[in-house]
């Protein structure tokens, strides 16, 4: 659970940008929550306020979250480049005005194509913006690169 304007310098601190992703991921969000990287478990989701991922275009901000096993990010809004980077790397990110209603530890199920997030703990549905079809197709392929590879193969065949 994070607030507004979580930036790429706290997601992927410059001091560790030279090194391997696993090392960088250990410092992911540490300026806001020193325990985050240690306690994150595969399948966890990050929930935040508005303008998540603002700042740099560094894709490592997405890669660090993925390396920690984060399954999706739900926020009131995302910074433009972070949104594109996440989609390109097949990390589903969902825009939900009701992100603030989620409590730490709630169990969530995300259905990205339909634009629905089920909060199993609170037994309620959060409305979220559905992901556009051309992006869903890309995520289904595993991100932009596999998607492009598929298109190139199709063009060559």
């Amino acid at each position, binding site marked *: 659970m994070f607030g507004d*304007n979580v*930036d*790429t*310098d*706290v997601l992927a*601190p*410059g*001091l560790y*940008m*030279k*090194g391997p992703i696993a090392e960088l991921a250990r410092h992911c969000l*540490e*300026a*806001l929550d020193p325990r985050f990287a240690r306690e994150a478990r595969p399948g966890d989701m990050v929930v935040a306020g*508005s*303008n998540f991922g*603002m*700042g*740099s*275009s*560094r*894709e490592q901000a*997405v890669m660090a979250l993925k390396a920690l096993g984060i399954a999706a990010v739900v926020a009131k*809004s*995302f*910074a*433009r*480049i972070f949104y*594109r*980077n996440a989609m*390109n*790397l097949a990390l589903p990110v969902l825009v939900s005005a009701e992100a603030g209603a989620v409590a730490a530890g709630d169990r969530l199920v995300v259905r990205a194509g339909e634009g629905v997030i089920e909060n199993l703990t609170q037994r309620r549905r959060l409305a979220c913006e559905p992901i*556009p079809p*051309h992006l869903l197709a890309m995520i289904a392929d595993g*991100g*932009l*690169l596999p998607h*492009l*590879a598929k298109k*190139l193969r199709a063009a060559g065949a």
Partner: protein
Amino acid sequence: MPTPQTLAEKLCAKAAGRASVRPGDIVTAKVDLAMIHDSAGPRRVEPMLKQLGVGIWDPTRVVLVTDHYTPAVDAESAAILDLTRKFAKARGIEAFYDMQGICHVVLPERGHLAPGMFVAGGDSHSTTGGAFGAFMIGIGATEMAGVLATGEIWVRVPATIHIEWSGRLGRGLSAKDIMLFLCGRLGMDVANYKAVEFDGAALRALPMSERMVLANMAAELGAKVGLVPPDRVTVDYVRAAGARMGADWERWRSDPGAAFEAEHRFDASALAPQVAAPHSPENAAEVAAHGKVAIDQAYIGACTGAKLSDLRMAAEILRGRKVAKGVRLLVAPASARTTQEAAADGTLAALTDAGAILLPSGCGACAGYGAGVLAENEVCISATARNFKGRMGHATARVYLASPYTVAASAVAGHIADPRAMLAETVR
């Protein structure tokens, strides 16, 4: 009569090969130029190109710059630079600027930008190209691999926020003050997914280097592009830099009656120097509001804070003065050409006579990659664009953002200071 279009819409329509587009349309744009640098460029895209088994769609349309890790400070950064140089050679990139300065400054300086272009840059401050009337967007590395492979990218046509500054900036004021003021007033996501178009008499009076600050820091408003419609000043700069440019540059402006999503008007004459408190440009307020915060370091660097005009602003303050005891003033000129020009006109000497320490051109301490990073609990006033927690070094360090005038004045005073008082004392 066709529907009037904004500048952003016209540029998108041209790149998409369509007569017109509307905000929200998703179009595929042909890229005129792709810019990549050592951090997000070759080391990330080369494995992806290999994975795809393709070459660069058109190496003559790619500019590669080393700036983030220059000069190498350890084996890791040296390896990144080595890989970058090998990539330039292997992939046949002629426009390779090795240690010539920061990408956003090198690109226009060497004549790669002109009105009407559609450019993809592998860096979030790629919005800087909008100062030249080019639709230049920042993208991540995977997306860049896609652009390099295909020469195309999908874009959602942005709505436009129009920001007009009337009047004239006072002495000791600069484009940085305008942008910090806007971050404070409008917030850092006001323009998310949108275009910002800057106009008005106060901005028309600004040289290209200052207009670049507007477009650069449009990124701090969340913008996809920050545009300044081209005029004579633009054309003279672009021609002198050697860029090829169509004779039809005058069409790159919003049509009369074009629909803006929002319009803001401000009076530049009423603006006071702005300082943004840690840890966000959004925390901007008039310099006096911060009190006399003592500083350890003053930093004049980065794409947005160390061009020739920025160094001249600092020199105006520093001539005949000394940096306060216990304060270090670091200056990292934005490009090699900036250094040459500042050396030739006496600007550099004015800085170093005052006690400034000269650092190599490059991103340096701006993103915490290079020389000049901060220790625990240190306080810095910086002419850069971002002061997020931990960006310039230790997470407890506190960074204030300000114009080169204000940074220089603070370096002299030893605490945050209003440059106007010092300029008033300066005998001219």
